[in-house]
């Protein structure tokens, strides 16, 4: 059965919801939060990518490889 899914790609937070019986139901992320920070981080040492809350938590120590508010940059030359 096909389902309708909606993604709100926000500047600071993103949210995903699915239509369930005529009502939109927000899907929680793995950490149990209904919204996920729109932040992505690349770890140099570990060759790992962080998304959401963990990426936001390490932004201070890894500012050069942490991307946030990326919506403001989309389409810029």
């Amino acid at each position: 059965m096909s389902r309708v899914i909606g993604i709100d790609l926000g500047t600071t937070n993103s949210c995903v919801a699915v239509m369930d019986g005529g009502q939109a139901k927000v899907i929680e992320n793995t950490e149990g939060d209904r919204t996920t920070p729109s932040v992505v981080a690349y770890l140099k040492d570990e060759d790992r990518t962080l998304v959401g809350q963990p990426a936001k938590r390490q932004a201070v120590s890894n500012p050069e490889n942490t991307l946030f508010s990326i919506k403001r940059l989309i389409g810029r030359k």
Partner: protein
Amino acid sequence: MFKIVDKDKMKNRSNKDDADQSVDHQDVEKQETPEDQSELSVDEQLAKSQEEASKNWDKVLRLQAEIENLRKRTLRDVENASRGSIERVMMEMLPILDSFELGLDLKTETIDEYKTFKEGQEASMMLMNSLFNKLSIETIDPSEMRYDPGLHEVISTQEDDSVEPGYIIKVIQKGYRLKERLLRPARVIVRAEKNKKDSPT
């Protein structure tokens, strides 16, 4: 192509003996009989299908109503469950709150009075820790450990040669974890990366 095939078929048929032909006739007769029956009972069949359709439609409506009721009941159950869990935790918290309140009523003018107050506070804290154990809440105190973005939040970075890069210098605020779920990350100061300006990115 098709014509040739047809001719071949005709040839094959002409070669067949009379017995085979009689079998063919029987087959035709057999095919005709059910058709006749179905033509006779078209009205009956229609009535039967209509009855079946209305039965199925009734079933669909009933199931739909059942699903709607189930959804409402589930929502109510979830609300009750969350209220119930808050109540249970609060019931466990109240004696600890009483203990802290008793401590606040104590006089702390002399050293002995202050010592009694402090012992009381420590006892209350022990109660709190035992409650945490009971609720499977784990304290995250990562002093001198390697920084982990899954559990710790960097407040700032500092240069400190006594600690390796990527390790925690100081814990500003402890974190808490409920089983696999992080309640609050530990807020920490991390050793700054060496040669930061030399890195290409």
